[in-house]
């Protein structure tokens, strides 16, 4: 048996070209923190360390048919991280740096669907470095920049010294609208405290006790086109029916999975004394029973979806149809 403690943590580092990923990576590799990391990079030479724990990736994406769902995964990462695990005693964790144009979805899914990686690793968190000076232009140019922000657990808003207060506030607002769930750290030279970057267990369902209510603040520009990235928060004080919820979620990810980047939920079922917690990336879902509800605790179910072109009204009505028919 492999316990959560034995599993090798994997941190995914994304961000658009020039945002400051490599600077952050070099800091992690050179600063004294008593830990050793294996690093999967796209471009050799950019990072200042050359040893046998630095491995080049070649971004081989392919479609996998995992029983009932289809999803794209990164074959090179299955091979490389699997190979690194053959000498797992040599390092404490794995850092994966993606190219500026990479879609984080297949990278994350890889760690959920490959059985060897699932058994021996745990995805720790997705860290996205954002260039305060250029993010808003990039967002207009290419989908990748905002998608990387939407997938993040931690947003490092970098190069804040290069923008004025007004510009900074605009970027902050944009990030909040893309991904209100992510923690934001503002930096110069990617100088985020490493304890905020590493070993956070953001994907650990055991730690998922509560979901912060969504911000209602919205960027009006975003709603001019239907394919913009939105974050939809739903909540219910009425207890839910497990069967109805499971059927709704299954249909939802089957139909809209490719548009849903991240999803998370803490749910109160009418006939259960414990929370039911889940998270998902596109069509890949992970769920389990969580901590028991306290006696006096309000049993509020909360869900959040971050994705492109999601229809909040459709999600709201679907969620409402999961309410238990019987009184709790």
């Amino acid at each position, binding site marked *: 048996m492999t316990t959560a403690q034995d599993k090798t943590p994997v941190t995914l580092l994304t961000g658009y070209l020039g945002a400051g990923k490599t600077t952050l990576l070099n800091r992690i590799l050179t600063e004294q923190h008593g830990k050793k990391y294996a690093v999967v990079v796209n471009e050799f030479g950019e990072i200042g360390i050359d040893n*046998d724990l630095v491995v080049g990736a*070649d971004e*081989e994406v392919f479609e*996998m048919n995992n029983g009932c769902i289809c999803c794209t995964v990164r074959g*090179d990462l299955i091979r490389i991280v699997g190979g690194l695990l053959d*000498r*797992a*005693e*040599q390092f404490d964790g794995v850092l994966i740096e993606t190219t500026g144009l990479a879609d984080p979805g297949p990278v994350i899914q890889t760690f959920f669907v490959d*059985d060897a990686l699932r058994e021996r690793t745990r995805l720790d968190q997705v860290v996205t470095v954002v260039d305060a000076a250029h993010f808003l232009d990039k967002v207009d140019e290419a989908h990748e920049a905002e998608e990387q922000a939407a997938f993040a657990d931690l947003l490092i808003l970098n190069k804040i010294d290069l923008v004025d207060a007004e510009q900074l506030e605009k970027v902050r607002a944009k990030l909040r609208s893309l991904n209100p769930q992510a923690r934001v750290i503002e930096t110069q030279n990617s100088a985020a405290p490493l304890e905020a970057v590493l070993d956070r267990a953001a994907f650990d369902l055991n730690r998922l006790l509560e979901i912060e209510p969504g911000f209602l603040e919205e960027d009006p520009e975003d709603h001019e086109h239907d394919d913009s990235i939105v974050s939809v928060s739903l909540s219910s004080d009425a207890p839910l029916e497990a069967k109805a919820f499971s059927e709704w979620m299954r249909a939802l990810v089957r139909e809209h999975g490719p548009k849903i980047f991240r999803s998370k939920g803490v749910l109160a079922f009418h006939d259960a004394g414990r929370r039911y917690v889940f998270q998902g990336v596109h069509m890949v879902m992970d769920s389990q029973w969580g901590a028991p509800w306290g006696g006096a605790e309000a049993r509020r179910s909360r869900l959040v979806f971050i994705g492109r072109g999601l229809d909040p009204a459709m999600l709201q009505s679907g969620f409402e149809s999961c309410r238990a028919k019987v009184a709790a």
Partner: protein
Amino acid sequence: MSALASSPGLADKGLADKGLADMGLTDPAVRDVGADQIAPGLRVSEIGLGANVTATAASPAGGIAGLGDGRVVRIVEGGAEEIARHDAAVVSLSALGDGRVVSAGQDGRVLLSGRRAPVTLFDAKGEWINACVVHEKARQVAAAYGRTVVLIDDDGVRGRFSEHPSTVSGLGFSPTGDRLAASRYDGVSLWTTNDLAAPTTLPWKGSMLSAVWSPDGRWIVGATQDRELHVWDLLEDKDYRLGGFRAKVRGVGWTGDSARLVCTGADVIAAWPIAGRPGAFPPVEIGYVCEGVVTAIAAGGPSDRIAGGFSNGAILIGDARSGVAMIARAAQEAEITSLAWSPSYDRLYYGARDGAAGEIALA
């Protein structure tokens, strides 16, 4: 219970039941194998090597282990003797009839060692070797790194196959050594080793992880990322799927007569009859007494004797035709990563993720 496709249970139930009953293992309450259940008549010796055993081979002089820290060691009476060292994990090992060993590593090197100081047969200059196979009679070694496969003989690198659409994950020589199968995304490339002409392709959508030839040269079997096996019949030009595995199939082998395909990936050691049409008959299944999944297999002898190692460290030796089996190593913690039969098929060498390596001698 196993969920292998088209498998109602043990193929030859009478014999299989008899074998298991002899071992006192028909009691359904027995769900794991303990040290007191090891079959009598086996001599087992084991040592700890201090690093994950990533590959095991059997040379005429004894067992060879390749380790996650790069060492290649010969198991000798009471210990281990280092014969070569890679700068990163050992990926594969092949033992030659004269006691020498070909090893490939994540340091990009293919080494020949065992009798004198190690000789570098090939160096991919830092790129990992992902697969390496040896055809001793044809005096050829093939090694894959990235999308390229090199063919090495006594005079060094003789040829390069580089027209692969993606990283090559597995290699297999045909029994005669005149062809080489290379697995990659969307199928297998079949090369001819003497003219290096363009390959023929065995297509199958998805990520293929291996390509193993049957001893009679008729079949090629490859595992897929989708937890299936894909079997090509080169004689009839047909292909088949075998499914229902609990994990990716990491090990595939054949009985010496090519009649049965033996594989990991299920909760039992599965030996599929191939004659006629793969999948037409259910596999013989060995190992209901073990928890966990089969992680390593060894097959290929003149008899139907096969061995399987489990994710809980147990090892079973059985008969691929009857399903009769005996317990050769008790369940512990770490998974068995690799198994190899001695050339005479009377000794089984094994390695485990926690660094345990050993020899099981049959009476």
